[in-house]
Every structure is written in C-alpha cells, then in structure tokens.
C-alpha cells in the first residue's frame, strides 16, 4: 500500500523514520514546501540565526550524542553558508546530514534567483553528496545519506533537493534497502595483523597508547580503558580524543603535540611502541614527522585505510573498527597466558616511573595572579565546577588549548571543539546543538572574544529557546593565538590582531533578555562562575584576562615535539 503525498512530506517521513527528532535550520524560498510540512511539528526545528551555525549546531548535536545531526538551508546563499560547517564535520569525522533546497529542475543552470551549484561546491566539503532532481530518487538519497554519514569513518553528507521535487506529488513507498556496491567499510581487522600487534604489545618495554577521536566515534571508551588497564601502558589523548580515557585515570598523561604537555611529548619521543588507536598523525600532534617518535614501532588501528601510512608508515597496520579490534586484542592478550619476564617487568616499571618523573619535572601548571585574571586560572575554575562532567564547547585558539590542557573530561562526548578545521565561531552554536541533545547537562561555551563575535547572532537562538548555556568569553582583547605567533615569530609586530570595542556583556545579554556580566579581578572569578551556573537560564560571562599570555609548552611549527619551548623567554638580568 502506498500513500499519495508531496515530496516535502516524503522528506519528513524519511527523516522521521531515520529517527530524527530535532534539526537546525533556516528557511528560504525554495525550501518553503518543506517548512510548510514542518509546521505540523513531526520534527522539532530549531531556528538558528545564520546557516553556518545550523551546521555547527548539528555538529554539536552529533558530537555530544553520536547520533546523526541534521541541518537545513535554502538554495544559493543558504547552502554556501553551510560549507564551513560541512568542512568542519569532514575534518573531525562528525556524522551530519545537510538538506538544502535547490531551484526547480528546469531553472538549474539559468542563473536563477538564489541559484548556486551546491552539488559542485560541496563535493570536496562532504563525504558524499546528492542532487535530487526526481521525486522517485528522494527516499533513496535520504536513506543513503544517513547510512553513509554514520557508517565507516563518519562524515557530513549533503542532499540537495530541487523545489519541484519538494512540490511534486507521488506515491510514498518506504525504501527498505539501499545498495552502494563501491562503499567499503572495513570493521573486523586482519586476524594476522592483530596477532602481530598482540605479540608486539607483549614484547614492548616502553609502550604508549596514542588514542584519538576514533575511540569516541566508535564508542570504544570502555574497551580503551580495559586495554590500558590490562597493559598498564601510559596513555595520551589527542585534542579530539580527550575524554576517551578519563582525565583522572592514573595512566592518562595528557594531550600531546604543539601545545601538549612535556610528559606527553617526551613519552611520544621515547616510547618503543606507539599503539595508535583512531588517530591520524596530524601535523599538530607529530611536529616534524622525521623526528616524531623516532624509537617507536607503530601499531596503527583506523577504520579508514587511507589514514594508514598517510603520514607515518606503521609496522602493523590494522584497518578496522577500533572497538572490535580492541576487543579482539584484549581477548588475545588475556588468552595468551604469556607472563612478561622479570627483565621486561622491570623495564616497564622504569618506563612508568620515567613518565611520572616527566610529569613532575614540568607539570601543566595553573598560573594565577593577585591583580589580574590569568587565562589558565579561568579554565581551572571551569574545571573545578565541571569536575570532569560538564560539556565544554570551544572555538579555536588559545582558550581552546588552555581548556584542553586544564579541563578534565571523564567521559567521551563532553569536549566539543573544532579540531581539524579550527573554525572560529564554532563554540556557541555547537553548545546550542549539544544543549538540545542533552538538556540535562551543564554546558559551558568557552570562547575567545574573536570567535564569540563571529557567533553573536546565536545569542538570539539561545535566548529564544531559553537554553541554559553558560557562555564564558575569555577576553584578552586580541586574537590571542595569532598575536602569540606575531609575538614569538614576527618580532612582536602586532598586525590587525587587536579587537577593541567589545560590547558591554551585561547590556548585550540584557538586550536579549538574559543576564550577563563583565569581570576582571581574580577574586571575582569563582563567585561569578558560580552565579552563572546557578542561573536557570542562559548567562554571558565576559572575563577580561591578562592580554599578553602565551600558551606553553609550545612546539614551534616544523620543530620536533621533543624540543618544546616550556615558557616565556626569561628577561635578561641587567648587571
């Protein structure tokens, strides 16, 4: 039996069947038929204030739950505005589906009003994309989009639907099966390679687990923990992997890389075995590749074959779902019954001791001052309140790095940041998406004064839905990270980085009908944050911090990660 209905209704029907309960979007001319159906409230539609933020909010929804996030925009400028969010999701492997309207089929190619080649423009921005010009192709495309977005290495998929398809009438037949003969998803891992990996792990004297976003995407945090405890190996989590092993876990070191801790980078540089799980040897992690982990053999587990050997050739490549592969490795380790010899046991003890010493030698230290608020102080106060439990979203830059260094995340899907693409303006809309997905959670949107001003329109979304997001602006009056590079590498010639004229936070929030405050004294920090958290609604806290602080440790671009700059150059003593 099939029912006669419009394309727009079919679209909603498909989305509902895919389990979509909430989507983020902005309507326009060609999506009118779709919005007319949304009027019937089968899906909650969240009206954002800019399409880019619809994509970021969908990411926030997906990152905080693992479910596919959905966003929607009209043709032309609506679709082009989505692109930053699509690339952001692509870089961080986040499953989102974007629905865009397109001008009517007969108008395509005629430079019609609000026409853009969305299909062409978003080809490199997506894992896959579709242009639907026939009503009978619509259901297929939507279900394929959800499957492709959420399977294998997750990513964004866009479906561009022409207006005549949305308006057309047809018989709805559920598409119960899809066939993508060329779409290969490798999940199991090669048995022989897994055996070799197990042997290597058993023989290693200085093993290090290097795990990342793949653990979170695969929902493999439990397996990771079991593996780490079984092997007692020290562990670093990449920026994308924070929370995959609880920050408070005794084996956890911290984040490695350009702004990683001394201990994490020294461990990377001295390990004899890197067990790389769902990571991609990103340049911000490895520094100069030739000098990266020079003593280590590498076991690399990733679901994407193209990641294996892309930057570092592994000794044992394993293409598979890291959850399943870890399960097999754990099983094999337990069943092997091989006990390490005394020498090996001693070597591993010495290695763990060495890592502890590195941690003590140069710990990540919270800097405070009696007169001004240090940015590290601010993030440590957020950490104190969060206790590893709150969702924290961030943009990109100094505040992001300090947050990654100092805020604990004891579960996956709490730390939501724009890692690969590094998009300013991500934090606030991502918090919107996360708060809708997890209404029970305390959500901090920790953003810089630069990124916040890129996302200011979303204050209206926050206000209009009464989302209790705690927006904390780490305000140093500069594009801090760019300024840091100008200071360190461009003779302190501060070109176009000063952001003066920041709005009065109390008035700004007040204009939207919620509370806001500006503070600049260290003793105001804790009470202000507590007040923000107590407030049942949204809160905008503008924290003026020391303007010229730099993030350390720092590995200069192109440097080896063992050669960190640990702090600011010491002033030369005048004789």
């Amino acid at each position, binding site marked *: 039996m099939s*029912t006669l209905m419009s394309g727009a209704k079919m679209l909603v029907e498909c989305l509902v069947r895919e389990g979509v309960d909430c989507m983020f979007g902005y309507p326009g001319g060609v999506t009118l038929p779709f919005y007319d159906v949304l009027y019937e409230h089968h899906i909650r539609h969240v009206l954002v204030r800019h399409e880019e933020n619809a994509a970021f909010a969908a990411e926030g929804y997906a990152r905080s739950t693992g479910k596919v996030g959905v966003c929607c925009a009209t043709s032309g400028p609506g679709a082009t505005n989505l692109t930053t969010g699509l690339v952001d999701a692509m870089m961080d492997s986040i499953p989102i589906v974007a629905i865009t309207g397109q001008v009517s089929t007969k108008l395509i190619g005629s430079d019609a009003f609000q026409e853009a080649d969305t299909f062409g423009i978003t080809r490199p921005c997506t894992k896959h994309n579709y*242009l639907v010009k026939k009503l009978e192709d619509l*259901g297929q495309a939507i*279900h394929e989009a*959800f499957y492709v977005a959420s399977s294998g290495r997750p990513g964004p998929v866009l479906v561009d639907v022409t207006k005549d398809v949305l308006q057309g009438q047809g018989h709805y037949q559920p598409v119960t*099966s899809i066939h993508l003969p*060329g*779409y290969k998803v490798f999940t199991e891992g090669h048995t022989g390679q897994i055996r070799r990996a197990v042997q290597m792990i058993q023989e290693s004297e200085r093993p290090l687990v290097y795990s990342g976003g793949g653990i979170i995407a695969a929902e493999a945090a439990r397996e990771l923990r079991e593996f780490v405890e079984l092997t007692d190996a020290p562990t670093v989590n990449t920026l994308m992997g924070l929370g995959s092993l609880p920050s408070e876990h005794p084996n956890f070191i911290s984040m490695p890389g350009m702004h990683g801790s001394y201990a994490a980078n020294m461990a990377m540089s001295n390990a004899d075995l890197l067990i790389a799980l769902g990571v991609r040897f990103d340049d911000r992690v490895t520094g100069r590749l030739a000098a990266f982990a020079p003593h280590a053999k590498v076991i690399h587990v990733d679901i994407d074959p193209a990641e294996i050997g892309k930057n570092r050739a592994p000794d044992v490549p394993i293409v598979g779902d890291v959850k399943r592969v870890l399960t097999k490795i754990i099983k094999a380790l337990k069943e092997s019954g091989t006990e390490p010899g005394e020498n090996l046991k001693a070597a591993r003890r010495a290695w763990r001791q060495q890592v502890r010493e590195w941690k003590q030698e140069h710990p990540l230290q919270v800097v405070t001052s009696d007169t001004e608020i240090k940015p590290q102080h601010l993030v440590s106060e957020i950490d104190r309140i969060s206790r590893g439990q709150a969702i924290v979203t961030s943009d990109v830059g100094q505040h992001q790095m300090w947050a990654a260094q100092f805020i604990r995340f004891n579960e996956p899907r709490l730390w939501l940041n724009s890692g690969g693409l590094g998009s300013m303006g991500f934090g606030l809309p991502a918090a919107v998406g996360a708060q809708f997905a997890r209404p029970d959670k305390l959500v901090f949107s920790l953003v810089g004064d630069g990124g916040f001003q890129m996302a200011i329109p979303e204050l209206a979304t926050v206000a209009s839905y009464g989302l209790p997001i705690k927006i904390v602006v780490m305000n140093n009056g500069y594009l801090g990270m760019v300024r840091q590079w100008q200071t360190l590498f461009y003779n302190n010639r501060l070109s176009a980085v000063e952001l003066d004229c920041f709005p009065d936070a109390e008035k700004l929030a007040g204009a939207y009908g919620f509370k806001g405050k500006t503070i600049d004294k260290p003793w105001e920090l804790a009470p202000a944050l507590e007040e923000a958290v107590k407030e049942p609604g949204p809160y905008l806290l503008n924290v003026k911090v020391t303007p010229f602080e730099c993030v350390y440790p720092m590995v200069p671009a192109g440097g080896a990660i063992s050669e960190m700059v640990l702090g600011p150059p010491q002033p030369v003593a005048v004789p």
Partner: protein
Amino acid sequence: MLQVISLLLENKPGALMRVTGLLSQRGYNIESLTVARTLDPELSRMTIVVEVEVHQRQQVIKQMNKLINVLQATDLTESPAVVRELVLVRIRTPQESRTAVLKEAEIFGGRVVDSSTEGFAIEVTGDPEKLGEFIDVMGSWGEIDVTRSGALAIALESKKLKLQPPVPTKAGVKLEESVY
C-alpha cells in the same frame, strides 16, 4: 612521475567530478583521462594518467577507493597492462611529398581517414610514446593538427572485484503509525 590509474565506477552524475576533484584538490595535473561505459551500462571504466609523486601513488589509489561511486581503483603504473592511445593527425602537404607521407604513415600502421588536395587525415593507434614519434615525423613533412584520445589501459591480470551487498535502511522499521 606519471601514474596510470584504471577505475571502475558507477555511471552517475557527478562521479567524474569526484575523481577529478580528488586530483585537482591536491594540485595534481591530469595528463589524460578517458571514460566510457562498460558492458554493464550502469558502470564506467576510466583511465587516468596523472603526474603524482612516487610516494603519494598509494595514497591516491586509497583516496579513490574511498569514493562512494568507485567500485575499484587500480594502479597500473607498474603492473602488467596494455596501454593504448589513438591519434588523429590532419596534415597539409604539398603534392610532391604526398607519397612519402603515406609511406611514413604506413610504417606506424596508420590509416588514411580523409584525403583532399591539401593533404590527409590519418588515424593511428599505439602506445603513447610511439604516437609521439609519429606526430614528430608528420610534423617534419608539413603543417599538422593533432587530436589525441588519451591513454586507454587494460590490466592483463584480473583483480577480484568485491562488491558490497545491499543494506537495510531504517525506513523498513515499522512505525507505530506512519506520519501521514
């Protein structure tokens, strides 16, 4: 170094763009590209010759295999394969050298496809290097126009094609009641 890639892909709108986009976004210049449908009209076979650094060759194949529409990407650069190309040459030649031009064309296995008082149009197939020589020789006899087809390649060893089976969608899930 020039890499020869053979692709089997779904004959769908945008499939070509995905392949060329993958190369152009890495700044690789495509030397030649041919594409046509296979015995199965839903599939196309594409041969690409592209300038790629040696250490990136495997990465390019892996990235192509990741494209949803690509069923199989094979690197034929160093594996047993036959590579052929077709060239059409129009040559303007004076009366006195016509016989000589025809003789030369014959040496290359050429076939005259048009003849006029001004000269000939000649068709030759062969491996791309040989065709280069043919073009040089023709150029020495008169003014020429040249169109090359780009390389076509076929592997001499068949590689097993693994196709993925259909998967069920969530549309099959019985809803309490349909939305409409």
